[in-house]
């Protein structure tokens, strides 16, 4: 294992954390959009209270992965930026609208029942739905080898170079998979956040539904990979690590559903996070040693060793600050008294609740 492999692994860990934490924040927005039934408004409040204190910190995992990518694997970053210009720009618009709309909604004043404020809640929810879809298609484009061969893998011309790599049934199926996975994670976490039983039951039903949908989305993506991502598919079936990984993933999935069934919320959270992580690592292993299959390897894309060594040092230093801080954040808001118990800005609206 080389230095570059280690850094690539760390970048993937950051992406994994983003999927589990930031992804669930997007999933929360999906449940805001799909809020139904007599407890509709309470569901929305729960979602907003749960993600309020943490979404910005969760978002930074993506930034961290991005800066590490352009520092340590600059040719890969350059190629991603060039060929995925369109979907990444759309992802950015989604990120901007999601984040600012959420803040405008929660901090805009005028009370949460305000009609104008409610519009921001809508924008937040729709952006939360669209962004994971597009993010998923970019992952699909990488996995399918569409960014290979300097971008000529999918033909010439504007369409062939800048659109075809990320717009096909397979990449869309990965987008769908990402969306469903994020919604699944969010529903699972929310069962734990909900203090009232009826609200927890609402999200239990949603989690069960999303768990089944996740299985279908995975099956769809796998069947399409035969035609669109043969390299990945072959590795996912025939590599030495494939069978144990699939067994572990299946175990996590069954545990998550069983624990949901039996209302063991904490166990569900662990199992669901493990399930999604294992799927992500399956993707990573199946395209190793390529950053962008089928031609750009980790070794070929890697920055000089001195940069990698310094970045590893900075990572160690940064982790020493980051992990205690993150632990503190999650202990304060997600510990025995989740943030949903206390209205987040009740105190902030002390003097003027106009």
């Amino acid at each position: 294992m080389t230095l570059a492999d280690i850094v690539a692994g760390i970048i993937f860990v950051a992406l994994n954390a983003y999927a589990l934490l930031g992804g669930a924040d997007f999933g929360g927005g999906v449940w805001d959009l799909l809020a139904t039934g007599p407890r509709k408004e309470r569901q929305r409040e729960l979602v907003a209270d749960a993600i309020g204190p943490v979404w910005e910190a969760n978002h930074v995992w993506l930034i961290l992965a991005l800066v590490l990518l352009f520092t340590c694997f600059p040719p890969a970053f350059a190629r991603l930026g060039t060929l995925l210009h369109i979907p990444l720009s759309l992802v950015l618009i989604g990120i901007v609208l999601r984040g600012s709309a959420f803040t405008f909604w929660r901090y805009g004043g005028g009370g949460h029942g305000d009609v104008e404020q409610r519009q921001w809640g809508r924008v937040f929810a729709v952006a939360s739905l669209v962004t994971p879809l597009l993010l998923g298609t970019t992952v699909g484009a990488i996995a399918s080898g569409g960014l290979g061969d300097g971008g000529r893998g999918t033909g010439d011309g504007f369409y062939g170079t800048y659109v075809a790599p990320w717009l096909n049934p397979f990449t869309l199926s990965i987008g769908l998979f990402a969306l469903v996975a994020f919604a699944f994670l969010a529903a699972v976490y929310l069962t734990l956040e909900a203090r009232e039983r009826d609200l927890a039951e609402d999200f239990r039903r949603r989690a069960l539904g999303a768990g089944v949908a996740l299985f279908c989305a995975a099956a769809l993506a796998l069947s399409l990979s035969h035609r669109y991502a043969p390299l990945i598919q072959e590795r996912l079936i025939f590599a030495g690590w494939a069978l144990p990984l699939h067994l572990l993933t299946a175990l996590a999935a069954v545990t998550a559903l069983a624990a949901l069934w039996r209302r063991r919320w904490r166990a569900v959270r662990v199992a669901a996070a493990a399930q999604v992580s294992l799927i992500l690592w399956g993707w990573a292993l199946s395209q190793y040693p390529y950053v962008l299959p089928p031609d750009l390897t980790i070794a070929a894309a890697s920055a000089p060793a001195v940069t990698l060594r310094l970045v590893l040092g900075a990572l160690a230093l940064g982790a020493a600050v980051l992990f205690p801080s993150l632990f503190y954040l999650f202990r304060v808001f997600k510990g025995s008294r989740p943030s949903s118990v206390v209205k987040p800005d009740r105190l902030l609206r002390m003097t003027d609740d106009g």
Partner: protein
Amino acid sequence: MPDLLAARSQMGVSLAFHIVFAVIGIAMPLMMVVAERRWQVTGHAIYLDLAKRWARGTAILFAVGAVSGTVLSFELGLLWPRFMEFAGPIIGMPFSLEGFAFFTEAIFLGIYLYGWDRVSRRAHLWAGVAVAVSGAASGIFVVIANAWMNAPTGFDLVNGRAVNVDPIAAMGNAAALSQTLHMTLAAYAATGFAVAGIHAFLLLRDPANAFHRRALEIALLVGAPAAVLQPLSGDLAARHIARHQPVKLAAAEALFRTERGAPLTLGGWPDVAAGETRLALQIPYGLSLLAFHDPHAEVKGLDIVPRDEWPNVPAVHFSFQLMVALGTYLSLVSLWAGWLAWRRADLAHNRRLLWAIALATPMGFLAVEAGWMVTELGRQPWVIYGVLKTADAVTPMPGLIVPFLTFTLLYCFLGVIVCWLLYRQIIRSPEIPEWRGFYMPTDR
């Protein structure tokens, strides 16, 4: 619109938008922490209200800053893939460190905003301190990376490729100290005066309002010292660019020919075709004196490089003049306020000072924008000074006018919304009768 121009415009709009929020994100937490600390010491609820209002403003502004910063980090690859491919290994380090600083900022801001009744008072204040410190650190790391583009070092160029990469040397580039100092002070001065200006304006209408008096006091405490120190850091920056980026200085000063005992040019319109500046006021020996602290020093003019390597001289000259004029105004007002405060006069009853401060509300931010124009436009046509031209760094993707217009519209829309929300949230003064007696400084 040519693709290169569209890409530069999109980057320019994104930076011009983000820099406002980045600057506020550096200075606002400091003000909020000062207010909270005063509340803890004096026990007066007015300070708590102030801290919470500022915190609410910070929440909105930080969120918009975080997402627009995300856009920028992606745009480096979306618009300038060849620049990043070259620069990533050399100058990625400060970006990685910035990632951690940003992380710390986001974590402790979450604790600060949502933790009023969840953590102890002491822990809450320290969370605010952590936000203020990591906010300043993020800004410094990003500016170090920009300084490297102006004074590239830490690598050898062999056949267009960087070898012997030394990221530490790149971080210690010649422009890093003067630029980070100048930018950090600018952040405190611009935000301090923007907040002070708003409250000064409201005090003019309602002189007995204790809330605005206290707000003005804290905002000036943050903004005024920075504004006074800023000309000193500006001098450091000017002497740096005179030595290391002579073309930028020549464009800023509209100095077409290299000369000894160069005059300082105030105002005027640089006529690039004729190679002279019309209608300008010239102070003999002024530029040599300022740039080298020697009236007879030789200052390099635009003639040291071929014409196709000149930046847009009128734009750089105008931005530079604007920045210096606004900065001078802010430092003079600061000195005036400081002198009055030293003589224990009541600032909030001096209507002329209040008008001067109210006028300054947008000036710090205009100066920040103008300063960025100087450093970015003044480096053109290079993206990495003397190493890589901007035209060679741009993405091959066609049709860049579409994302340029899209992001411009998005940012215009967000800008309007943010102004409206701040107006609704922060400016509306609280009506609490018992606070009316809490004057400054008589009952202290």
